[in-house]
Structures are given as structure tokens and as C-alpha cells.
């Protein structure tokens, strides 16, 4: 009986802790080497990281994986720190957000470089659009 109580105790504590785990998806993007790494905390993604297709193909290839990643995550971070933003990247990223919003209503945050080579006016215009269209937060 004592042992059973001890085991129940362990189980309760582990359940309590597992309820506190905050699942975060962290997706790092960089063009040319598109989806460089992605993982959903506390899961570690062990997939190959060198994917050379362009990002649209990449999203198609990884759609199932992205879906798996997103449905479990409470917070999604998209790290664009390594991304050199061009006009085409906006189109590709919008496609990514379309894909993501199909699977999750949770908070999505984009992490952008403080300084970016791309035209500030166009970048801000795009940020304004994605905030409204996709309900996405931007952290710089």
C-alpha cells in the first residue's frame, strides 16, 4: 500500500510538472538554405537541415512537419535573423504565414534583425500588413 501511494505521488508530481510545460515552436529561416532549423520545444528536431529548394517548395515538403509542430505549440517564434530580406521574401513569407494560420490560432512572433538592408519603408509596410492580416507580432 505504501509503495502504491509513493508511485501515485510520483505520478501526480509528474502530471503537475507536465501541465506547466510551455510548448514553443522555433522556426529559423534563411533563404538559399531555407528552413535552416526548426524545432518545437521541448521536442528536438533531428531532420536533415540542409534543404536547398526555394522556400515555397520547402514549405510544401515540410507542410506536414510544420503542421505537427504548430498544433502542439503554445507560442511560435519565427527567427528571421539570418534572413536577407528581398522583395521575393515577402511573398514567400506570406505563403508561410498562410500555411501556419491554417493550423494554429496561437501567438506567432517574428524575430527580425534590428538593422536590415532592405528599404525601411517597404519593410514597415509589410510588417503593418502581416500584423493585420495574420495577427503576427514582430520583435526587432
Amino acid at each position, binding site marked *: 500500500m505504501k509503495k502504491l501511494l509513493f508511485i501515485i505521488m510520483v505520478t501526480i508530481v509528474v502530471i*503537475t510538472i507536465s*501541465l506547466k510545460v510551455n510548448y514553443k515552436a522555433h522556426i529559423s529561416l534563411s533563404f538559399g538554405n531555407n528552413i535552416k532549423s526548426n524545432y518545437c520545444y521541448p521536442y528536438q528536431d533531428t531532420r536533415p537541415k540542409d534543404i536547398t529548394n526555394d522556400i515555397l517548395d520547402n514549405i510544401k515538403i515540410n507542410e506536414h512537419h510544420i503542421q505537427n509542430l504548430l498544433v502542439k505549440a503554445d507560442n511560435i517564434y519565427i527567427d528571421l535573423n539570418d534572413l536577407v530580406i528581398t522583395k521575393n521574401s515577402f511573398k514567400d513569407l506570406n505563403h508561410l504565414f498562410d500555411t501556419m494560420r491554417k493550423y494554429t490560432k496561437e501567438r506567432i512572433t517574428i524575430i527580425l534583425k534590428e538593422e536590415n538592408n532592405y528599404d525601411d519603408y517597404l519593410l514597415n509596410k509589410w510588417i503593418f500588413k502581416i500584423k493585420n492580416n495574420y495577427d503576427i507580432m514582430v520583435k526587432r
Partner: protein
Amino acid sequence: MSDELRVVFPKIFMWLFVGLLITFGMGFGLQESSLMDTLFSGGLYLLVWLAEIVIAIVLAVRIRKMSSLTATILYLFYTALTGVTFATIFAYFELGSIMIIFGVTAIIMLIFGCIGYFTKIDLTKISTFLFMGILAIIIMSVINIFIGSEALDLGLCIIGIIIFMAYIAFDIQAIKRKLYGIENQDSLAIYGAFQLYLDFVNIFLDLLRLFGNSRD
């Protein structure tokens, strides 16, 4: 120390160490692998917990009748299953924090093990209090899963640590005085290791909840 105890105690601590190694190795390995995904998404978690409880009942009821080999297999299987559920611990807490608290728990185990071994006080007198304490903690912990009170959680952790510390001393004394009524040395070693393993894990979890740094 009698010759018999001189043989049994090292075996108990050897099996305790093996059990802990399996549990923590399994937890860490699972958290690092993509298997964690499968574990969390399916109903596998529930099955693991169910299996743990079944093994505990079998070990408690049948230990006197089963061979030492069966007892060893069941014990190792139990520690591996606990390792599966421990993947959550590795997901939530920092690895450094887990390692420090593991060390602290080992020191506590050593101190209270010595107290249990050398004390002249008959610790069976406090067993009813300890049992009632555990029962109260379980009931309050279940209630707290729904209430989510941090203060109550803190209180339960502190009381839990005190009770399990006392249980270490109690269990060591019980093994020394052969209170479990197991004649076979190997079976007694496994049974003793299982008792101490549960004490260790419970103290470790309570300490981790009190002092552990989360990864968030």
C-alpha cells in the same frame, strides 16, 4: 554489522544506482530524441503510468514468492517506465538544475540512511504518522491540480520532503531489522532498492519543484 547485512546493503545500493541511472538516462535520452513527439501525442503516456502502478502492486504483493530474477526484471522495467515519464522533467527544467538537485538528494539519502541505520529509536512508531501524511499530501495534491495554488504547492513540497526523509531512515531500519520478512538475500536487495528508489525519486521531485530552474 552482521555478515548478511554486509552482503545485502551494497547490493541494495548497487541496484538503487542502476535504477536511477536507467530512469535519468531514459528521461534525458527521450527528451533529446524525436520519440518525445510520439509519446506526447498518443495515449502512450497513460499506458506507461498504468503499467507502473501494476508493477508496483505485483512487486509489493508477490515479492516474497517470486524469484529474485523476476523481481530484478520487474524493478528494472519499472525504473525504465519512470524514465519515460521523466522526459517531461527534462523538458521543463534546466539540465544543470536537475544535476545539482540529484546530487543534493543523494546527500540527503546518505545522511538519513545513516540516521536510520545507527539510531536506537524504533522508527516503526512514526510509520502511521508518515502514512497519514502521505495520504493527506496525495489528496491535497490532486485538489491542487484543479486549484493551481502556488502557496499550497510550496507547502506540500516542504511537507513531502520531510516525510520522505523520514521514510529513508524508516526503510533503512526496516531492511536492517528484516521487517519485510524476505529471507532470500537477492530478493531483499531488490525490494530494498525499490523502496529507497521511490524515496529518492519523491524527494528529488519535491526539491526540483522547490528549487529547480525552468527552461522558460
